[in-house]
């Protein structure tokens, strides 16, 4: 199991457009990626409803987890995505 921690870079937090960009990227990895807030239950990172309901705000640290071939590389790319201010792009 590969895991990464990252602080949300998007100024509006992880909802609206940033959430859909992240979910599309997580789906594209082909791996069962999960995302969790600190102390919270992990949710399916491929679920827009789950990710939006997570309500992760700007600066909040989330944990990404994945298993399978290429999990480390997949998580690294998702981390760099979340670090950016997706909303400003």
């Amino acid at each position: 199991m590969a895991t990464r921690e990252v602080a949300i870079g998007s100024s509006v937090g992880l909802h609206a457009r940033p959430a859909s960009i992240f979910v599309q990227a997580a789906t594209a990895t082909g791996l069962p990626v999960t995302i969790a807030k600190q102390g919270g239950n992990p949710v399916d990172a491929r679920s827009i409803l789950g990710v939006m309901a997570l309500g992760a705000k700007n600066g909040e640290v989330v944990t990404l987890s994945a298993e399978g071939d290429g999990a480390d590389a997949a998580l690294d790319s998702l981390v760099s995505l979340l670090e950016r201010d997706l909303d400003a792009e």
Partner: protein
Amino acid sequence: MTELHSTLSGIGVSAGVAVGPLVIVSPPPLPPADEPPTTDAAAASSKVRDTLKAVADGLQAKAANADAHAKPILEAGAMMAGDPGLAGAIDTQLQAGKGITTAVSAAVDEYCAMFESLGGYMAERVTDLKDVRDRTVARLLGQAEPGVPALTTPSILAAVDLAPAETATLSVETCLGIITSAGGPTSHTAILAAQLGIPAIVQAAGILDVPVGTSVALDGGVGEIIIDPSQAEQDELAARKARREKALAAGSGKGMTRDGHPIALLANIGTAADARKAAVQDVEGVGLFRSEFLFLDRDTAPTVDEQTATYTEVLQAFGDRKVVVRTLDAGADKPLAFADLGHEENPALGRRGIRLGVVRRDLLDDQLQALANAYQATKADLWVMAPMIATRQEAAWFAEIVRAKGLPRVGVMIEVPAAALRSFDVLSEVDFASLGTNDLGQYTMAADRMEGALSELLNPWQPALLDIIAYACDGGAKTGHPVGVCGEAGGDPLLALVLAGLGVSSLSMAPSKVRAVRTSLALHDLTQCQQMAAAARASVGPKEAREVVISMADPVMLDLL
């Protein structure tokens, strides 16, 4: 079943007559109460997944043809329909033995409850989610997806009520008239129909029982509907329409009473496109430019440059005519992704309008800077006002900021009864006021504008509302500062006479309503208007107030209503 040749009545909200075949907007389907439980969860799961895929594909196809406003909404819906988390939640319900559409409904409701508890932006997404649910349930039941069908021939549209997204796609070529069984005079349906000049009636009980395709005639002025009208009835409506057109064609130019007392006739607009359309019409300017459209349905605030460009375009369209801009009126009921103050129990009484401007001073400063830039570029007759002012202190606070930006005229909306009662104080700080009669009615009567069942309390003829307006006008007279009206009441040709009599100096309305109001004012002297205002205020209720004013008005008025 409603009988043919019978009549129905409702509340007329957009004048004019129309005859055409009835088209009914399918209401959202409900899971059948007697739905059999699921025995083969795997088969049901596969059927649900296929259906969700079809719904997602359908929304994606619509998004491809949609405009910039509707596109992200439809794309978000497609993504929700394709969500593996939603499919998983439905599976859980199916495995528990729930019937197939009951399972879909229950799973979506769980997400809705979660989003509603998060409040603000997330709560707003509930509408999108319920739309996905309704489409999925309809398909599983073998029905057409709900919503406005594509109109191929000119028709009369009937619905429980129309959502803003549904009304946005209507055109005057194919939609001859609108009838809703719910909704109220200040609902989205009513406002949009008036803007487009489509005859419309709300609160018409029984209209949804009329068979699709039946010929229906409606008179949006008096609120009367004739099912399968006879030739004689159609002729009478056509004659009425001709008399109305003749009366309307008589006048042009500035609004004034018969004895020459000026009442400026202005347009309510919401977008730059509205401004271009309204500018070529016979109006004296803009009495209400709702600036919200620049802010809603986007993830970040518009930049100063973007706002400057839009305001400049609007000001240029009107040349030397006055333009009154209302600063951002958003809040908990119209949440902004970038200014979410969280869940509020009573959004209409919460941090909306200027109260949001106080918390998010950056948004207000940017908007005023953009208005100042547009003013410098055009030197237009620009008036700027704040929504939801309640006290003299708020008015003073806003006036100081606006004047510091070098803007020529600053005013306030009077929507809160407190501001009307203390209008001398409030108007001592600013140059003008504009009465938002829809919200002023809502707050005076403590009745939610969106609650159709309370439409009687929200009737703009309520004597208490007229009293409050009289208070506001009194403060205007004592300070010498003009008080206008920019709510729906200003567009009613009969009520316009009462408002003129109460001392209002301008009336702002949907441009399609200006002609009738101009004609109405030109038929009466100011003293008559003042007598009508006194008689309306002396009435025991809204119905009596309207009747007494009709009895005092010129008979030609009956064809304008």
